[in-house]
Every structure is written in structure tokens, then in C-alpha cells.
């Protein structure tokens, strides 16, 4: 229907415009939907190689029982009778590195977040924020190098040597420390956002009750922001669990039940790099086991991220 005052050609061009827009809209929707497709593809690839393989391939769990995978404490991904496929050595290696990293990143990240929100002046903050971003931008492989060539020989060996402790060249401690440094900026910036979102009125009220700056920070602001801060810890932990290159370089490749942080261990990610770079055939058990490890890693990080996201959402609702 022609609009009042408009000619027919106007109307046609408007119609053409609309069709044009529908095409663009659809195209952009496809772009956005691609991310869902990616997730679907990841899940399909992991499942089809680990759980149930279509066609003539044999999936990992068609050769190895889930019970063995979850209960055995040995990891020897080789063909034949000597093969042992318990996830625990890799899982414990991963957890050890991630826990050590948390011991580094939680105090450093939270301290930095509190310092930047509560103490640093605007100019100091303008210096600190880009510096932390710079730290966050350093590639993982560089941290691996730093752990192997500096932290272990120049820091751990001399210091722990004084205590008569024997530090291996490859060890979980150095890997954990550098991963901790790596994820510190993540905790710092997420916690900073959360702490900053605590209303100013709450701080003023605390001051008005005769609080010192320490009381305001640690007894009012941080407790008020606690759930959000917790979410940032979890996110950093999940990042540490998925961290690959630094760990593959520094922790070594020995899949043992890791109990000693001064010895080498292998993490899930470390094993995956190892398995994919070896020359084993595509359908060898070593290759296939990579998918089982991959699915464990995927589920573990997804779970932690979901919990963290849930906490963060609830926190935001509280202050809006």
C-alpha cells in the first residue's frame, strides 16, 4: 500500500530495502549461530571418539571400561596388555598445578584488586592497569620457558636446596607458580570490577561508624563482594586447569600420581599435547585416549565456569 505523499517507486525501493535487510539479518544470524555450531562440533568430536564411534572406528570407551578410567591409578596409554588407562595420575597432576597456582594467584590477585580500588590514586591505577594487562598478554609458552629456565634452577633449587630438598628439573611447583602469575591479572581485574561495584554508600556508612580503612575494606567491602570474588577465583582455577604450554614445558611428561610438587608430573593438557605430537597412528589407543582426557578436561572446566557464572549472576542481581 503506497504511503501518503510517496510515489510508487518509493514504495518499491522500501520493499527492496526490506528484502535487503532480511538477507543481511539472516547472514549475521548465521555468524552468531556459528558459535553454537562450534560447541556442538566440539561435543560431537569428543563423544564420537571417546564414547561411541560411528562407522568402523572403535571409540575409547569401547576398548577401555569407564570403571578402569575412573578407578585405575596408572596411566600407560599403550597397546596391549601393558596399557593402563586411569585418569587419576593426569587429574592429580592437573589439580596439583592448579592448586599451587591458586596459592599464588589468590593473594596476589585479590591484594592487587583491593589495592587498586581502595588505595591507589587515579594516576597509580592508570599505571597499574596496563601493566597487569601486559602481564596477562604474555604468551603461555614464555611462562613455561621462565619456569624451566629461571624459576627452577635459580629460585627453587637454591632456596629449597638449603632445606636439603631435591628439586627435579621438571616439577609441578615451578609450573604452578608461573601459572599462578599468569592468572593473577584475571583475578585482579575481575575482583576489581566486583569490589568497585560495591556501592559507595556502604563504604561511607562504614567510615561513619568509626572504621579504619582496613575495617572498611576487609569487614565491609570484601565481605559484600565475596561471592563475586569467589567467582573470579573459580574462573582463574578453571583457566589454570586448561592451561597448556607452560605446564607442558615445566611440569614434564611423567604421568604418576602426583603427590610431590618438587617432582615432575603430567597434566591432562600436557598429555594431550604429547599424544598429538607423537607419531602414533590416528586410531591408536594413545590417540584415542586423548579424546577421553579431552572430554574430562572439557567437562571439568565447563562445570567450574558454570558455577562461577552462576555465582556472578546472583551477585550482580543483589546490587541492581
Amino acid at each position, binding site marked *: 500500500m503506497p504511503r501518503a505523499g510517496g510515489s510508487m517507486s518509493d514504495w518499491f525501493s522500501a520493499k527492496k530495502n526490506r528484502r535487503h535487510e532480511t538477507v543481511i539479518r539472516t547472514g549475521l*544470524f548465521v*555468524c552468531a549461530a556459528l558459535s553454537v555450531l*562450534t560447541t556442538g562440533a566440539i561435543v560431537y568430536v569428543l563423544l564420537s571418539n571417546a564414547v561411541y564411534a560411528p562407522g568402523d572406528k572403535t571409540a575409547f570407551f569401547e576398548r577401555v571400561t569407564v570403571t578402569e578410567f575412573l578407578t585405575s591409578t596408572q596411566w600407560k596409554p599403550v597397546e596391549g596388555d601393558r596399557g593402563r588407562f586411569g585418569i587419576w595420575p593426569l587429574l592429580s597432576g592437573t589439580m596439583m598445578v592448579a592448586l599451587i597456582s591458586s596459592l599464588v594467584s589468590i593473594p596476589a590477585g585479590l591484594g592487587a584488586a583491593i589495592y587498586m580500588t581502595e588505595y591507589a590514586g587515579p594516576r597509580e591505577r592508570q599505571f597499574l592497569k596496563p601493566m597487569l594487562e601486559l602481564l596477562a598478554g604474555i604468551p*603461555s609458552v614464555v611462562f613455561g620457558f621462565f619456569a624451566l*629456565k629461571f624459576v627452577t634452577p635459580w629460585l627453587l633449587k637454591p632456596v629449597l636446596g638449603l632445606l636439603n630438598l631435591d628439586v627435579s628439573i621438571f616439577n609441578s611447583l615451578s609450573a604452578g607458580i608461573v601459572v599462578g602469575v599468569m592468572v*593473577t591479572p584475571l583475578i585482579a581485574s575481575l575482583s576489581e570490577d566486583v569490589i568497585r561495584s560495591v556501592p559507595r554508600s556502604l563504604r561511607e556508612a562504614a567510615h561513619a561508624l568509626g572504621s579504619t580503612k*582496613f*575495617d572498611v575494606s576487609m569487614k565491609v567491602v570484601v565481605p559484600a563482594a565475596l561471592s563475586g570474588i569467589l567467582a573470579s577465583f573459580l574462573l582463574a582455577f578453571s583457566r589454570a586447569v586448561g592451561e597448556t604450554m607452560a605446564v607442558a614445558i615445566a611440569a614434564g611428561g611423567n604421568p604418576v600420581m602426583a603427590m610431590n610438587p618438587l617432582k615432575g608430573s603430567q597434566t591432562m593438557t600436557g598429555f*594431550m599435547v604429547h599424544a598429538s605430537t607423537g607419531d602414533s597412528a590416528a586410531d591408536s589407543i594413545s590417540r584415542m585416549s586423548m579424546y577421553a582426557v579431552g572430554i574430562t578436561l572439557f567437562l571439568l572446566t565447563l562445570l567450574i565456569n558454570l558455577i562461577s557464572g552462576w555465582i556472578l549472576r546472583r551477585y550482580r542481581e543483589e546490587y541492581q
Partner: protein
Amino acid sequence: MSEFVDQPAVSFRQGTDTLLRRRLLNAKVFRTVCMLLTYSSLAVLGVLMGSVLWSSLSRLAPDFLTNHYSMNPVRCGILAGLWGSFWLVLLTAAMSIPIGVGSAVYLEEMAADNFLVRLIRINLSNLAGVPSIVYGILGLSAFRPLMISLQTFFDGTRAINVLGLFRVRILHLEIFDGSVLIGAMTMSLVILPIVIIASQEALRAVPSSIRVASLALGATRWQTIWRQVIPAALPGIATGVILAVSRAIGEAAPIMMIGVLTVASMCPGGIETPLQLLQDPISVIAVPFDQFTAMPVEIYDWSKQPDPQDRFTDVAAAGIVVLLGVLLIINAAAMIVRARAGRRIQW
């Protein structure tokens, strides 16, 4: 509670209350601890840079940039990784930027709030947390078979009819395992969530008054987005996208999975100097399908070299200096974009 008059005289002078003196000391200690924690992270950054630079000095020479891999650490260079990373990032950017910015525009400007869109949003935030090595598995298991079937198409024996007029022979292309294209496709998936989220933030920063004003003047939704919103958000998008793409330069895990070369004495397409690229631009066609290595992969390999005298340590350190140098240049570019845009546009 006691009455007003019964109270002893109050003093507000500092130091009159011993308990408070202790509390204030606590506060001071706490502040110092927080400060030390903050600066210790930066100190680690300094030590890292310092030790890498120190260790790299013995190998950091112009020929490090122009030499190939060598068993002899003194002659070992990063040329293959430099070109490999260059092509990888170029292709990654070419794929991830249009898709990423497009997704962001859709989600921020066009999407209705229905189930599917909410699914995309939730999925996106979770995808950003998936470890990059998992994308490597996807590349290894999905993209490589794809390339193998492509290889059978480009085997040089086929031809197609164009409108029944010409018969065009399909050229023979050698598609290698672990090619630049597979690497870039994998890497695109890794950085896509970051590109999308950064672009979304830039679009969100554009005040809605601009949209309303444009729509009120009779522009259609798309005209508004294309002519007003995107230009206004462009500096923000550019900054975010540059930083996301720079992630792709430092990432090694996903491309390790797809079977990238760890020891390489060749550059993709055989292009070793920019001059060569100018003289024979056609050789670029072979680049995406060629094997490659990348700087972080080489650094990984050098760090792990079992060399009794640790001579490859210096090579790895020199590689890191080059890698960090490249990243620094890119980050500086992003900062300049941000600073210039900040001066021009002020809401």
C-alpha cells in the same frame, strides 16, 4: 547506657587510644601488604623480561631473523616461525573478524530476545572459557578430514565446465596435513568468542541517542547500524579485535594439536622475503595449503631441546624476545587507535 554528663572528657587526638593505635597500625600493614602483592606481580614481569633478555643476548642478531632452524644453536633462526605466524594471523583475522563483528552486530543491534538468541549468548560466555587445547582437538578431528577430502578434489585430474563455454582445469594443489588453513580455522574458533565479546562491548558503548536520532530521520535499521553505529563503534571494535588477534600469535596449544611442524626449514609457499612476495605474488595461492610452524611452537621446541650445554636456551630466549617484540608492536598499535579515537569522539 550511661548518661551524657557521666562520660569522661573525650579526646580526638591521634595516639590517645592505644587500641586504635594498634588498629591503625594494622591498617597500615594491610595497605603495605596489598601494595607489595600488587607490585610483586609487576616485579615478576620485570624479572621475566630481564632474564629472557639477558639470556637472549648471545643469540639476538640480525641473522636470527633470517636463518632457518639449525641443529647448531649458533646458526639457528626463527625465519620459518616468523612467516608461519604472519600467515596464520593474517588468515585467522580474515576469518574471525568478519564473523566475529557480524555476530556482535547481530546480538547487540538486531537480535530479538528469544530462546535461540539467549542460547547463543549463554553459549558464547561458556565458549570463552573452553581451554584452547580443546579447540585443537576439533581442528585435529574435524578440519583435517575436511582437508583430506579437499585434497582429492584438487588432485589435478578434474575440470569443470563454466556455462558450457570453457573447461577449466582445476589446478593441482598439494594440501598438507597441518596446513596454515587448518591452523587458521582452528585459531579462529579460539579467538572468535573474544572478538565477539570485545565488539559487543564497543557497540554497547555507542549511546542509544545516535540510534534513535538516525531512526527518527527515517533511516532503516540496517542503514542506522551501517552508517551510524558501526562507524561510531569502530575504534573500540578495532582495539578489541587487534588485542584478540594478538592472542592468536602467542597461542601454541591448538595448532600443536593439528600437527604443525615443530622443526621447519621451509616457509609456507616458499616465500622467505617480502621481496620474493612482490616478485611472485601468485605463490601466495599455495600458502594456505602449505605446512608451517609458528613462533610459539618453535619456542616450545627450543625450550625442550635436550642439550647438555643448554645452548638452545639462548635460542629460545631470542625467540621469545622476537615474539614479545611483535606483540608489543601490535599492542602499541591498539593503544594508538584507542588514544586517537578517544581524542576525536567524546560522548
